[in-house]
């Protein structure tokens, strides 16, 4: 009996001393590529390998393709549950996996998903937008009230179906403006808003720039736009790769936005005229002068 007790105590001590420390549980998924831009003719197909990596704890994941639509004008997506017949174009070529099928992804492991897109010969011209969504299945058990959290990560797929060699997309600058007042203060920041509408039936990549000329017509800045995608018949706010940070600007300025869809020569442009005056400083000087004047007048009256 003593031996048993002794062995139990020794075992307990070893357990307490050498038990592996509990690691903080995390869910961490990566997907490559985050965006896939495809133009296919009806009757053609394409294969793209996706790589999913689990940098968190062991988890069970599932791949599915979900349609999306643009959410806002900054390139964000809103997943849609509306059935889309083009979902049938997608399949996984992995021997042991299919879309909608769960599989285990060990901690630190990667899984390649071979996604095939087959466009049937009868498909009509047009665009379809999807997200390849990797859902991590929640394996936790709640013993009392609470919420189970799950994470998903998605890579977007822009699919253009066309039987034409050249898409010849067209765009129009819907709005070119400056955030805030049209008359800017010399000490303000200058945030330009360039809303560009894709007026064609296929997504386009907007290539262009914003040029700024001063009162004397001299070009003083050229700010290239980031070449963002604009979905068919939708509007996107373009952002410049650099910001305009002039030193004490003053006078009348002209900003001209020029955008050409990539692979086309259909250039569109729009001009914005704005004034920059140091009115805050002038106002401050006026107030100080007024205060000084009132002070002097008051003294004189005394």
């Amino acid at each position, binding site marked *: 009996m003593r031996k048993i007790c002794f062995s139990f105590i020794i075992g307990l001590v070893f357990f307490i001393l050498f038990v592996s420390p509990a690691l903080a549980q*995390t869910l961490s998924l990566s997907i490559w590529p985050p*965006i896939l831009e495809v133009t296919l003719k009806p009757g053609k197909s394409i294969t793209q390998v996706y*790589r999913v990596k689990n940098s968190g704890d062991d988890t069970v994941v599932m791949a599915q393709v979900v349609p999306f639509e643009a959410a806002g004008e*900054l390139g964000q997506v809103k997943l849609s549950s509306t059935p889309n017949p083009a979902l049938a174009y997608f399949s996984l070529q992995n021997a042991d996996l299919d879309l909608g099928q769960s599989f285990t992804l060990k901690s630190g492991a990667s899984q390649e998903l071979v996604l095939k897109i087959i466009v049937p010969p009868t498909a009509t011209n047009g665009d379809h937008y999807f997200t390849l969504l990797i859902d991590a299945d929640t394996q936790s058990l709640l013993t009392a009230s609470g919420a*189970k959290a799950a*994470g998903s990560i*998605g890579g977007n797929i822009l699919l253009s179906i066309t039987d034409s060699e*050249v898409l*010849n997309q067209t765009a129009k600058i819907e709005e070119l403006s400056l955030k805030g007042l049209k008359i800017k203060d010399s000490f303000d920041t200058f945030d330009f808003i360039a809303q560009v509408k894709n007026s064609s039936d296929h997504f386009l990549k907007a290539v262009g720039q914003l040029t700024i000329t001063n009162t004397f017509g001299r070009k003083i800045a050229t700010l290239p736009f*980031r070449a963002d995608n604009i979905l068919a018949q939708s509007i996107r706010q373009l952002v410049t790769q650099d910001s305009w940070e002039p030193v004490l600007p003053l006078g009348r300025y002209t900003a001209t936005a020029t955008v050409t869809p990539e692979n086309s020569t259909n250039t569109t442009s729009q001009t914005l005229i704005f004034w920059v005056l140091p009115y805050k400083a002038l106002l401050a000087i006026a107030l100080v002068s007024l205060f000084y004047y009132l002070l002097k007048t008051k003294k004189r009256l005394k």
Partner: protein
Amino acid sequence: MAKVGLISILFWVFQLVWLVFPTPLDSANLTAVKDTLSTSRLSYYDSLNGAHTAGTTIIKVNTSGMPSTSTANLFTGDSVLIGDAATATTYTVDDIIDTDEFQITAALGSGDNDSGDLVIATRSASHTLAFTTATAIPNGLIRVLIPSGANGVNDGIPNHDGFDFNTIVAGDLTGPSSGGVTSWESPTATVAGGTGCSAGNHCFEARYNGTNSVNASLTFTIGDGGATDLINPAAADGHAAGTADTYTVTVQQRGSMTDQYPLLDQTTIKVAVIESVRVTATVDPTITFTIAGVASTTSTCGISTDVTTTATAVPFGTMALNTFKTLAQTLTVSTNGSGGYAVTSLENDQLGKDGGTTPFIADSTGDGAMTHTTQDDWNTATNNGFGYSIDNDDATTPAFQYSDVSGGSCTGGVFCAKQFAANADTEAAQTIFSSTAVANAENADVCYRLTIGATQAAGDYENNITYTATATF
């Protein structure tokens, strides 16, 4: 006869004396001569391989019959002139596809797409010549000769056998200074075949007054280091990629004008031009999304959390009546996609007993106006229900924050909160935080808050909340 013999002996004696005591030679070599090019890249000179479709951005070049025979020595961002003598347009290289194809950023114009239209990328370089004088020469000049090739020596197009003059003018030169002379005159540039400059070499001169010192170190810079420099040659005939083409540069010191500028000292050196090495590395675009638990008593959202969470479980445990419990998780996103990302949240349904639909703990309306799209203050524990807030760490654009005093109906700045959008109610997922640029481990805490009233049926309530991170398109 004796006279002839005497004359002959005297002649040979003089010859012997001449040989033994020769007159000192005035001419010598300039020493330490070197020509440093600001870039030794070969220019690019090729042509379109077949007619191209107007509007295309993929350019295919010839692999024989032109100075350049591949896309080697073309680089992303290079300016290339494509076209013929009638029309030509400057394009920007977007990417090198393979050995005979590259991509340009803008569509190829209709006048620039004929088979054989030239594809030219010029590489201009300033030449900085450094040398040391060997002889003291009064009122002389320094002349530099740089090979020009035979044809088109000043047309702004690279030559395959020399440097194009590129309409350099005197103002683009920086002549020598000091060297012991009284003064230097402004240097001059003369195109090969111009007045006083033989064909085959461009001439650059700097005249001086006074006498130079011996062993004077001088420099002579040709080109302004910007737009007006000599244009480097394209690959020479029979050029092998990776092997430099060499050209002979001559530096002379000549005597004074009164003596017709006689050549006194001269040194020739070789300069080499070669393709640059294209170093490539691919960084895959990717997006990474992480959910991590937060330990109890962690300070976030202006409170101390009540219970430890994990990445997948937010366990409120047993609830006291009309008492807040607040738990948190940390969401982190990294992406090198230039357009950024967005993280959205969506609950399957409200907290249902044992995961069912009824009875359930309703999503809270906060202190009055809280919905899944409108945030509101939520500071009164008797306003029962479930909701969340955000404590931003470094995410670029959080949808809102617990401390907001404006936006939606929030004014208090204590715990501004929202309901989760519910899939069961066909509500659209709502953005938690986002960015429109690359992101390096941007994170924010989501703070879950729950309070229940006395009429809530006993039991365990749960739901599922899904966070989705997607790159922007």
